[in-house]
């Protein structure tokens, strides 16, 4: 097992983690501020992926694809917030689970009706199809771009939350929505905005994942469940916690997928090891989450509460 393989897999893990962070940032804020369980976040990711793939295919420009994904996810996110989600904030989590489970069924089937069950394959844009040379070691520019975008979003969201008035209102809303509302802030609008931005980030994640993964109906759910793991590990409502947890989960999952089969090969037959490795790697993330919750039920980096 060479050093280059390890570095490449670490970067892959980073890339996956960053993608998870884009999903987790919006979801954890919706969890933390509105206390809303949104299983349909994966559907917004899928919508972003489809909008991105179709707009990219039609226009030939990947940037247009990304913009289309952002617009589509933002629009659908806002419509969902106004029509369904905002009615459920005051209900218990069971109603959230139920309603968004229904939405997941609907969107998966809608996509299947509109674009069929076959996955759509998206080309990596020409500009980013090459490789980057890092100290004599090459790595795909596209994956590198994903990491860069994710880091930019992470820094941007940190600045937004800690340095701006909106961010202050978000933090205040997370602690005591009634009081913020009593101070004359339109908390309903703030919630809708937050939900919309979260949806938009999910859409970006979907569009960027398009060339790496296949775009198809139901693509949102595996990544959603991993994102939920990220949020629980990071501490519900904490964006910085989501960032660290996303990187941890991304790296653990990716390294597990690559190295567990190699390790298992030492112990058992090659065919069994190759089959069992990835599945055990998928489990490793859940084991991590169970361990974190058993030791620190509030997550590793819980949001500070007043």
């Amino acid at each position, binding site marked *: 097992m060479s050093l280059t393989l390890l570095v490449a897999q670490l970067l892959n893990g980073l890339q996956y983690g960053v993608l998870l962070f884009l999903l987790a940032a919006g979801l954890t804020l919706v*969890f933390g501020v509105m*206390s809303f*369980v949104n*299983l349909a976040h994966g559907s917004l990711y899928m919508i972003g992926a489809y909008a991105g793939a179709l707009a990219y295919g039609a226009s030939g420009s990947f940037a247009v694809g990304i913009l289309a994904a952002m617009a589509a996810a933002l629009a659908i996110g806002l419509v969902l917030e106004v029509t*369904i989600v905002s*009615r*459920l904030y005051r209900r*218990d*989590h*069971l*109603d*959230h*689970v*139920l*309603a968004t*489970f*229904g*939405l*997941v*069924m*609907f*969107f*998966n*089937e*809608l996509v*299947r*009706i509109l674009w069929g069950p076959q996955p759509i394959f998206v080309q990596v844009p020409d500009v980013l199809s090459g490789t980057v040379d890092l100290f004599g070691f090459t790595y795909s520019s596209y994956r590198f771009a994903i990491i860069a975008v994710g880091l930019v979003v992470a820094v941007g969201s940190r600045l937004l939350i800690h340095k701006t008035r909106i961010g202050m209102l978000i933090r205040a809303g997370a602690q005591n929505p009634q009081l913020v509302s009593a101070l004359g802030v339109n908390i309903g609008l703030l919630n809708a905005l937050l939900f919309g931005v979260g949806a938009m980030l999910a859409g970006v994640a979907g569009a960027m994942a398009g060339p790496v993964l296949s775009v198809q109906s139901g693509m949102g*759910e595996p990544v959603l*469940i991993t994102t*939920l*793991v990220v*949020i*629980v590990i990071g501490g*519900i409502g904490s964006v910085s916690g989501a960032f660290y947890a996303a990187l941890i989960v991304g790296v653990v999952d990716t390294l597990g997928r690559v190295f567990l089969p190699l390790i298992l090969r030492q112990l058992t037959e090659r*065919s*069994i090891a190759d*089959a*069992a*490795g*990835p*599945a*055990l790697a*998928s*489990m490793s993330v*859940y*084991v991590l*989450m*169970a361990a974190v*919750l*058993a030791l620190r*039920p509030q997550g590793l980096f819980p949001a500070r509460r007043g």
Partner: protein
Amino acid sequence: MKTSSAFRPSTWIPLLLLGLLAIVPTVASGFDQPYWTAFFARILIYAVAASALNLALGYGGLVSFGHALFLGIGAYAVGLCAFHGIGSGWLHLLVAVAAAAAAALVIGAISLRTSGMAFIMITLAFAQMGYFLLVSLKHYGGDDGLSVGSTSRFGPFDLGSTSAVYYAAWLVLVAILWSMARVRVAPFGMALRGARQNVKRVDAIGLQAHHVRLVAFVLSGMACAVAGVLLANLNAFVSPSTLAWTVSGELIVMVVLGGIGTVFGPFLGALLFFVLEEVLKGFTEHWMAVFGPVVVLVALFGRRGIAGWLEALNRKRPSPGPPDIVAPGRA
């Protein structure tokens, strides 16, 4: 008092449906439609699983998003035993129930340290863990599943035929509905339902809410595993898809659709779920595009489910009996 309650629509309508279901195999063979037996057997089995979930979800207020795991444990208990040449149904049942109890004890002990959202997530995570574990076991079919060569044999009674599974599922359902009705008013059920509303008060009167909830979670998992045993025999096939997270979601939908926290709700919910699925499938292969919005509407407006609607019928007619015990709203 007991007799008057039996004549309420919320009681006699489910009982009538249950009675009608008892003659389905006879009618189906009369009309030479064996598919009906298999279809309704599936409903009965999921009704058992949903009723089991209702103990944790409805009575206990524990939103478990991972009950498909216990269904899968029951199914794989049959699958793995049969794979190794064990045909005794008693042993299948023992393995299923014991494994589910052990799993539920560990999962419950960890999950109950959290509440609210984290509880939903961690139960989901454990179910996913089980799912991926079974996918990884290529020796037992992995992703493709495992056919059950020899079905469960309880002495002379063999769950090999669809009608045998049907009658067994019907009996199990009747038993679980009866137990749920008894538990609802038993001290244990009272403590459990009390803990759903206010843990501190239950603790304050000297009961241990945590233990009550853990016991309910374990019992719920064990009953779900029995449904899994029946399911494996019905399909003569087990696969990790039994444990898919969507199955956990569907079980929750059945419970809420029928009426959460009621005795007959999960049974009515399972019945409506599959009948609606079957009817919608008759119109379009994209039935989920219609069913999804229905679920959303149920979440938005139909919170008391079918059982709640039947209870509303009770109140319309003048009843000499005492006023109905209305299920308190969920906190």
